[in-house]
């Protein structure tokens, strides 16, 4: 009985005095815009104890992130903390995850970053493969992000010689641009590509290739 009493008293005492960060969320998700080169994410926490707390550091798990907030930081009881993280979106597409480890009073907390990065232009598929003897027409669909300011202008086979063997045409549909590609003759063991060209957001010429493999 005496043991139980001592234990309960100690647990109550430690819960009251233990310095601890209470996080609004340990996961922050954000979707970037096409124009975002760097995305800022903020983790918010409060010192939920009645004791002063020292947050020593916040370290990202990859080179793609930097922590903008300065550490160490002393937090009074009830005081709020913001950990600002900058995520470099350059060269990344799709859902990307990373971690930030926060060291507060020798206790390490792991925070999760989830960033979704859009693509400006999507061509599907990029490789077209014909079986031996096959001469079917194949389609490439080009979709552009609604915020993208560039253009897709023309599609042609890489050389004049190849243009005699492969027919290419481009049509504009409601939601996408379609490129139709068909071999004019049997093209066994040939590899070539179609160049789809246009302008990027800065008016510079931009080229995409669709690769053709004839088995």
């Amino acid at each position, binding site marked *: 009985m005496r*043991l139980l009493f*001592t*234990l309960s008293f*100690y*647990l109550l005492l*430690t*819960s009251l005095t*233990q310095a601890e960060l209470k996080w609004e969320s*340990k996961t922050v998700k954000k979707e970037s815009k096409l124009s975002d080169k760097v995305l800022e994410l903020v983790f918010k926490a409060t010192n939920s104890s009645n004791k002063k707390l020292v947050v020593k550091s916040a370290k990202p*798990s*990859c*080179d793609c992130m930097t922590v903008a907030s300065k550490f160490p930081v002393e937090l009074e009881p009830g005081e709020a903390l913001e950990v600002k993280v900058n995520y470099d979106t*350059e*060269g*990344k*597409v*799709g*859902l*990307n*995850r*990373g*971690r930030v480890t926060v060291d507060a009073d020798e*206790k*390490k*907390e*792991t925070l*999760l970053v989830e960033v979704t990065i859009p693509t400006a232009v999507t*061509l*599907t*598929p*990029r*490789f077209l*493969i014909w079986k031996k003897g096959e001469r079917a027409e194949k389609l490439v669909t080009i979709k552009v992000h609604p915020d993208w300011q560039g253009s897709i202008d023309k599609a042609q086979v890489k050389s004049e010689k190849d243009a005699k063997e492969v027919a290419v045409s481009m049509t504009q549909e409601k939601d996408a641009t379609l490129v139709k590609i068909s071999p004019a003759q049997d093209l066994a063991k040939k*590899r070539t*590509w179609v160049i789809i060209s246009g302008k990027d957001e800065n008016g510079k010429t931009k*080229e*995409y*290739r669709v*690769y053709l*493999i004839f*088995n």
Partner: protein
Amino acid sequence: MAKPFILFCLIFCLPAIPSLLLRSSFEQENKLHLQKQDKLSVDVQTALTFKNILWLDARSKNKYEKDHVPEALYVSFADWEASLAQIFERYSDDQVIIVYCNEECSTSKNIASQLRQELGNDRIYYLIGGFDAWQSR
């Protein structure tokens, strides 16, 4: 003699249990999140059973230049057109393509997913555990 020892253990160990449990469950969840085996992933043991593999290295250029899986190509979303051109040079129908990066990065998964769409081939995977897993095979 035993009583003070039990009391000592209770006083010093019990308060740490809830935080340890919470932390390990969060880390476990995080790890599962990042390494969850799905149809797009392959572990190193399974990868080594494939005969014709085209390895793609999705780590940083510096890390690729220091060390990489033999004959692996460096690929990056930052220069996706050049990456596709390299893949085209080495591509064949009977190949399995495996993309790797570091242990906890998402790039290899995103590249594998993008390549499945763009190449219309579902024999494209990302490597669970990344380059570290390949090194400690």
